């Protein structure tokens, strides 16, 4: 038998003029957990999309169990025993677990779906791999961690031998993460070969056997995980030394600049309160972090504070002014800056240029307009200055369209625009999502600088590492309620995890 179950050799893939993959080689042994490590944009997803048949390589070849194969589409991949858990689950929400698992490969009896054999197999698999899943639960009613197990069961039910996990821990609590890592180890012990995509070194260290590092479309090295330190792998991934530590001035909180009291928001589609009696304040010179698992009311909280959704009751006070019923524009110019969580949806106008986006919160002021007409000279000068000050990089000048730029530089435009507003309150919603390690460092430094300058920073983050690195105070949001308040120095990821999953809650004094 061949040593490798999958060999992707000398793969090159171009998208237009951009070389997404350049002579990349990935070799996965039978039954190993092979980690694929790289920053965003390093080519991990492209490589996997080629293995899964969604893209075809320009050069190179793929061998599966020693035989050269052409993979033309996901169906071919499935036929060769390759299964994938996508970052965003591909489940039918109002079907049961069992229905989701058999979807596409149903047994039929007299033209009707027959689930009896499938049910047995699912229960059997679930027990064998310790997945503890109820086949009759409706997917929309089970947790994200459980939904992920449904995805795993889908692959097992189809007898896949090669399992790909694309950033599987991004949506999970710390407890769920450790359970998942155990499940993955179990799968590997049962002889499955696993490709584990991640940029979290700790997890790779915990489960990985070998690790292939991609950087800028090239395969840098394949190393044995156990023999190498996290620092070494990080260095290979980024291409330079990065420091874990960001210099921060001692905490000196001033007055409460943003005060939210008894905030409730009712969602008529879900028929329940998505925000429930929220009370907190952010003082000048501190970073308060709202931690929690995605979908527990974080987006709604930002929408309420910025005014994007005004169907709430309660009170929001900004720098002494009651802004509860004020318009978005009023809040923008009276002291709330916001780095929105979805920069493409809310943050930028992608078809506009850098310049047009940089002025998009100030275009109507006398600086950039006269009698309703645009002052182009002033706008150009301003854009040039901002591009230099915030080191915004693109292939052209200030007239480059934002959609042609990298995610990190797009985020720089938003940050430049928001910081330039010089607002006392800065809301940063997942400001480092989807950015690579270098860009993350830049954004985090910028947030700390704002705090040190005496701004009030409200940070929403799902990455506990980031929460611990930046925040002065941590609030945990669970099902629309604040269930805990912590000092980052006096708590641990494990403790926060218990609150984030709703297992524990504390009564806060107001």
């Amino acid at each position, binding site marked *: 038998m061949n040593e490798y179950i999958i060999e992707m050799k000398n793969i090159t893939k171009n998208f237009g003029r951009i070389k997404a993959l350049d002579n990349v080689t990935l070799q996965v042994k039978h039954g190993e957990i092979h980690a694929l490590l790289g920053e965003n944009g390093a080519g991990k997803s492209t490589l996997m999309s080629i293995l899964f048949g969604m893209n075809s390589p320009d050069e190179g070849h793929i061998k599966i169990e020693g035989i050269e194969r052409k993979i033309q589409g996901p169906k071919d991949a499935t036929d060769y025993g390759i299964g994938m858990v996508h970052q965003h689950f591909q489940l039918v929400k109002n079907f049961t677990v069992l229905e989701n698992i058999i979807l596409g490969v149903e047994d039929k009896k007299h033209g009707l779906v027959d689930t009896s054999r499938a049910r047995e197999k699912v229960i059997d698999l679930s027990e064998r791999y310790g997945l503890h899943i109820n086949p009759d639960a409706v997917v929309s009613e089970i947790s994200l961690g459980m939904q992920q197990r449904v995805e795993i069961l889908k692959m097992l039910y189809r007898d896949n031998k090669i399992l790909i996990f694309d950033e599987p821990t991004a949506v999970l609590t710390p407890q769920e993460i450790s359970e998942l890592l155990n499940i993955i180890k179990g799968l590997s012990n049962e002889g499955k070969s696993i490709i584990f995509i991640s940029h979290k070194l700790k997890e790779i260290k915990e489960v990985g056997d070998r690790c292939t590092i991609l950087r800028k479309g090239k395969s840098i090295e394949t190393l044995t995980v156990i023999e190498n330190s996290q620092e070494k792998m990080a260095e290979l991934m980024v291409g330079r030394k990065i420091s874990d530590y960001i210099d921060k001035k001692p905490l000196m909180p001033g007055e409460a600049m943003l005060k939210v009291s008894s905030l409730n928001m009712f969602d008529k589609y879900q028929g329940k309160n998505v925000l429930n009696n929220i009370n907190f304040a952010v003082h000048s010179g501190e970073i308060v972090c709202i931690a929690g698992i995605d979908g527990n009311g974080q987006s709604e909280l930002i929408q309420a504070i910025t005014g994007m959704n005004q169907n709430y009751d309660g009170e929001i006070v900004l720098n002494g002014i009651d802004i509860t019923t004020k318009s978005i524009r009023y809040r923008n110019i009276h002291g709330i800056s916001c780095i*929105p969580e979805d920069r493409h949806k809310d943050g930028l106008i992608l078809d506009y240029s850098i310049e047009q986006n940089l002025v998009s919160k100030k275009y109507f002021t006398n600086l950039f307009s006269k009698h309703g007409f*645009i002052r182009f000279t002033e706008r150009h000068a301003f854009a040039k200055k901002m591009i230099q000050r915030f080191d915004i990089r693109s292939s052209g000048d200030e007239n480059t369209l934002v959609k042609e730029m990298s995610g990190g530089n797009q985020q720089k435009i938003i940050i430049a625009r928001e910081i330039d507003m010089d607002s006392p309150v800065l809301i940063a919603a997942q400001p480092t999502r989807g950015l690579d390690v270098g860009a993350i460092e830049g954004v985090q430094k910028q947030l700390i600088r704002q705090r040190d300058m005496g701004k009030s920073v409200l940070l929403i983050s799902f990455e506990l590492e980031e929460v611990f690195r930046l925040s002065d105070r941590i609030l945990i949001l669970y099902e629309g309620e604040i269930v805990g308040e912590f000092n980052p120095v006096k708590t641990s990821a494990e403790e926060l995890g218990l609150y984030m999953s709703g297992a524990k809650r504390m009564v806060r004094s107001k």
Partner: protein
Amino acid sequence: MNGKKTLKQILPILLCILVGLLFGFFVLLLTNREEAFNGFRTILFGGFSGGIRGVGNVLYYATPVMMVGLGISLGFKAGVFNIGGPGQFVIGGFLATYFAINLPFEGPMRWILPIIFAAVGGAVWASIAGILKAYFKVNVIISTILLNYIAMYLVNYMIKHTIYDSSTNKALPVPKASQLPTAGLEKLFEGSSVNIGFFIAVIFAVITYILLTKTNKGYEIVATGFNPNASKYLGMNEKFNTILTMIISGALIGIGGALMYLASSGKSISVVDSLAAEGFNGIPVALLAFNNPLGVILSSVFIGYITVGGFYMQSYRFVPEIVDIIIAVILYFSAFSLLISQNLDKIVLVLSRFFKKKAGEK
């Protein structure tokens, strides 16, 4: 914008028009083989077929569709799909005719005021769809299409009760004093119906261009078209902007109606149960121009050109209906191939892959 970029934008448009014309030739071959070549030549020479008179008529026919094209392209830019051209057009046309007949003024006010009333009428009519969209999230395409029919029957009713000429089943003709001045154009383009309406439309094209590219409101309108969520987040009043866009769009289209029926050709509104074709022809005009107001000037002249060409085709025993079909084929095929050319890169890629594969199999 540099020259290379402009060329890159214009080239596909010319290509589309060529494909449209070839397809039109194909239809000619199907319907009347003997005269197909002559017919096609007439369309190709379009406005020039009739000499100087034809050129004048090209400008005459281009005028109303230019205004409608402007209104529609402004809507498209803002992400509002105003398909209400026929309704806003006929409302504008009716009000212009009504006031042209009934106003007690003398002098230029006899045609300026009717144009203003037409603009207000078109604006009010279009704003209904704008308000429905802004406050009740009613799809603009659907509301404007429905409003087209309401406008058509409303105008038919109003004509019958106010300015009806029962002998022709049309509105009364606009009196000479209320017609748009020809300003010597009738001598330059002898025998044609051209008048200053064309230049009024060009001025509005320039104004629309300035509005969209040089002002804050234009910045907001285009931003809202590209990304309504971000515009809201940036503090723009998207409800007001939606309504404002519909108001301007409707006003432009309403003026189009006025310029058509105030023209010296003496054409007046027929009381018929069909929607005004000019209102729809504005859509391909806008598409061919990539929604650029200055481009609308050119694309509407192109449409005027083939309309006049089609008119002269009748001398080769093509019935008017066939001529209309040919024009429609050219228009819509042009717009359709525009879609294709915008995705040309992708198509070339797929084709080259396909042929590579074929070659590989052999």
